[in-house]
């Protein structure tokens, strides 16, 4: 890449940025809008504000609550009277 002239390198950089821009602001939303299952999930992600892009459990706030809840469920497992 460094063998190419600066102008060519700048043009290819700008062209790649344009492609990314088109994917983020045109193709991305279009795919969501045209796929009903995706639209529903996408709306849910916006509403719930879950950190979908994070990869470890400590990065996602809701996982902390899920873990604490699961642990409490084991420690304080309901055992009250039920149907015979």
């Amino acid at each position, binding site marked *: 890449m460094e063998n190419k002239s600066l102008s060519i390198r700048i043009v290819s950089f700008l062209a790649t940025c344009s492609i990314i821009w088109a994917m983020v*602001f045109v193709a991305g939303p279009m795919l969501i809008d045209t796929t009903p299952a995706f639209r529903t999930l996408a709306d849910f992600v916006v509403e719930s504000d*879950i950190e*979908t892009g994070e990869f470890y459990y400590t990065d996602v706030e809701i996982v902390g609550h899920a*873990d*604490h*809840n699961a642990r409490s469920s084991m420690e304080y497992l309901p055992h009250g009277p039920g149907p015979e």
Partner: protein
Amino acid sequence: MAENAAKQNSDVVVDKASSSWSDLWKKEDYWAIWLGFLILTVGAIIFFNNKPADMEAKFAKQNAIMTEEAARAPFKTVAWYEAQTAKEKIKAKNSPVGKAIKGFMAKPKKWTTNPLDAFIQTQAQADLKNEAAMPKYNKAKAAAAAAKTAALDAQLKAEQAGFKDAGLNTAASASIESWLKLRAKESSAKKKIKNKPYNLIPSLLVLMIGFGLFFAIGMRFIDGDAKTFLKGFGLVFAVAIASYLMAGQATMKQYGIGYAAWAIAIGLVISNTIGTPNWAKKALQVEFFIKTGLVLLGAEVLFNKVVAIGIPGIFVAWVVTPVVLITTFIFGQKVIKMPSKTLNMVISADMSVCGTSAAIAAAAACKAKKEELTLAIGLSLVFTSIMMIVMPAIIKGTGMPFILGGAWMGGTIDATGAVAAAGAFLSEKALYVAATIKMIQNVLIGVTAFGIAIFWATKVEAVEGQKVHAMEIWHRFPKFVLGFLTASVIFSIAYSSLGSDAGFTMIDQGVLRGFSRIFRGWFFCLSFAAIGLATNFRELKHYFKGGKPLILYVCGQSLNLCLTLIMAYLMFYVVFPDITSKI
């Protein structure tokens, strides 16, 4: 004959590694440990000196309510959940010092069309957003209140029947579940009316200088040239900021494309178009950043989390995962004949354990090339996005029980964020199961990294026919893994000794989420930016030859999907149905 044997021996390259005391201050593995532990120690000092007031008394009060409610009804009552929520709200990171740290180390915020919104928000803009979100919040609040009344009514009816009527009990449970879902909606809506003004530019500049100096200390001893490192660090940090910015874009959040993918992509674009400038190349310390981040990640590998959901969770995460990992690796070697063992291992770990975090740990443990890590993360990203959308649709379409669906998604979707979104999309219970299974899998990366490091030191790197001695294993062993494991053991012991409530408040929601995790996120982001800036597309293309990595991922993931579903069904519906009915 003897002559031939002697000649043959002289042809064999005797590969001997070595260690010396000076490694302690000259090798990046040790510097990763020193710097990682410095952060963990500072975090522990800060948070243990700022405990939430009357923490123990508050836990005791809520636990008494939960004990009483657990004995009163055969299902989790409204009061049980309210006591649980009250406990969850006690977090060390919510102390004034915790909030100050969070504010200072904040990464770029969410935005939709104007990237400047990620860095600066005025009071007027915040007020406008709050005003716009208020009607939705009021609506969500009213709906949650109505659902709570309905849940209490249904619960009362079940109670009046002495909890002996199975139909009334089921109706009460369903009503409580609806209330929980609406309560979660209310909570999300509430966050949207709490916008505040911010300006992240000064703090980001301070962070850039701070992180630069932090790693320059290590570079001074490792390489002797901290100045050149500091010169180029600005570019790596700028790419990291750009990647956090793109990950915060609204549509990208919907796709689940996080900072790791963006950091690699932006770095790749720069290095393969304009070209990474020579003055910045010294700052591309991929391994130094990644190993320091991994030592910090070690503290987040809390072994007591394994029992969070009881035996079913252990079976789904800790039996299926190693089986899939080993089978996929053998399949890659024997059937697909992957050209690179390290690439095979990184993809197998990435797909079977927990995506990007496992890929990073596996790559560092088996000394994989940066292009191999890039490829594994790319594959994981694509399949995570697809599975996050497709799996909930399949579960809903087939009428699969949500707890089974949650366990299935938790065991198979790579990224935790995507698992949480897909689980929460189904139901509160599906979320709890999915997220907990994923968390248990996350913990498995400690064992995975250690196992891979040992396997590589004893089997893969050893010359065939050459006996590997204990000292030789020590010389070859990636030392940062020891820091990773030590951090894990120390924090696991601390968590256990505090008990689950105080451990959650002080360790999970204090030192880790309030401090070390923030550093770890930045360090991983820097390492991904450095990977992108140092990678050539042509080298990457070579690894994808014949589509073998894709075939390996697809085959391994198919096995993972089948085994996880079978194991989840057996554990949650055949062997332990009692636990499942009360989750």
